[in-house]
């Protein structure tokens, strides 16, 4: 967990230059969950660190795409679009967390299973 925490802090320091607001919060949540829920599991350390990095990368890409779409919608300046963003925004902010985490878990489990064989 200590190694995971060090890497997570490293990624967060790096990403705080690129992102802010809700995007950074989602990355923070992902890193915290990875440290608490993934790093204590059995499995190769390199896999955990790789998925932590991959998750952070996917988070950046996801948020950049999402923010681009919001900026495009804001340019149109319509109330319904703002409402949709307000209502669905938090869901779309977080929606990438679980798929990335669960895929990482699946890979970790496979490698751990192979290692035991």
């Amino acid at each position, binding site marked *: 967990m200590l190694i995971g925490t060090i890497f997570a802090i490293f990624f967060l320091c790096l990403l705080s230059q690129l992102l802010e607001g809700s995007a950074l919060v989602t990355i923070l949540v992902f890193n915290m969950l990875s440290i608490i829920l993934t790093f204590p599991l059995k499995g190769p350390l390199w896999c955990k660190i790789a998925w932590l990095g991959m998750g952070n990368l996917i988070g950046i890409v996801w948020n950049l795409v999402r923010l681009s779409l919001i900026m495009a919608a804001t340019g149109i300046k319509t109330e319904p679009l703002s409402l949709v963003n307000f209502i669905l925004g*938090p869901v779309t902010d977080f929606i990438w967390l*679980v798929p990335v*985490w*669960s895929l990482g878990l699946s890979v970790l489990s496979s490698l751990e*299973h192979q290692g035991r064989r």
Partner: protein
Amino acid sequence: MMLNIVFIFVVMIMLAYLIRHYIFTIVALYYHHGQSYHTHQNMVHQPTVSVLIPAHDEERVIGRILQRMTELTYPKDKLQIIVIDDASTDRTSEITDKIAEKHESMKVVHRYHDGGKGKSAALNEGLKYATGEIIYCFDADYYPQHDILEKLTAHFTDSQVGAVQGRVTVLNEPSNLVTRLVALERIGGYRVDQKARDDLQLIPQFGGTVGGFRSHLINSLGGWDPNMLAEDTDLTFRVYLSGHKVRYVNEAECYEEAVEDWRSYWHQRCRWAKGHMQCAFKHLWPLMRSKNLRLREKVDGFLLLNVYFVPILVGLAWLFGAMIFFTQSSLWATLCWGPLSIAVYSATGNFAPFFEVGIGAYLDQRKEACRLIPLLFLVFLYNMVICMKAFLDLCISKASGNNRQRWVKTCHNGGDITWEMRKG
């Protein structure tokens, strides 16, 4: 102002469920205290036991469980099997009679004229014939481990234990997507949720099957309540209110046949939701006032009783948030929106949230099952509709004074057990 207060209140409740789920997940990861099922001085506790198996039109599966009952390792002189043939119209009667003829410890009770009134009534009928000190019940489509009774019974050495509950694993998981998702729910619900509640000495729930009671306790409580759709939840709280407790035994595994299509899923979950809500209305106030429960049990009991209202709360919170957006700008709304999102996203998945399910799947070494976890979000949306419908049905039946519940039987196919046994 009122809208803000209601919105904040709903968000606080969601956060309570969020914290509860994460606590359970962390306990599953870090708490490794094993559950011993041997008594002090390593003696094994083996009182007389009666097993009740209610069956209504179960010709496809009844033979399998009865055969399994004859293979149990519990001493045959201390074991009584009672099959309640509840007004079956297929070959259930014929099959049960044929098997019972060959086994002295097996008895069949036929309810031709007053049967068909649901599982609770059937179990109460079986209870009249039970002579064991411990009463167990298994559904007809289940397939228990051969030593399940030893593992469950050992916990009755604690005089405070009034009931025990074993683990349910899905037998027909590879059938289709529905069964795979149900299997994931079961992993989260039993391997993580129930186990954590037992480890933390909260309220593990009796699940209606793969569980048992002290005979004198179940009789003093008046048996199963036929007016409750979720008679298992009702009994759980009645056990706790009487000053006893329920123990969850993770090592005592039993295999079940999960529903295989979304329509059956709808009916089953609708019944669970409605029954659970009935229990919430019945037990919430007595739970809060009870002197037999500790504070942590009351808090967990409160959250457990209201768990089927969560999807409705989610919908309401989202609606309130949108209303606040349109009618007024509010710092509270903005501040609460974030935690609500985290709470909702983390607390979904039919009440066994994603991370509980994931950790449970990992601990069970189910690497491929992990990939289906994101689909549970869609299952949650489906459950949101189910819970809303169940709540409306309940309100309508209460308002009209019509408490008669319609029992929609879950169909079973009698799947292949070899897949599950091979997985071991």
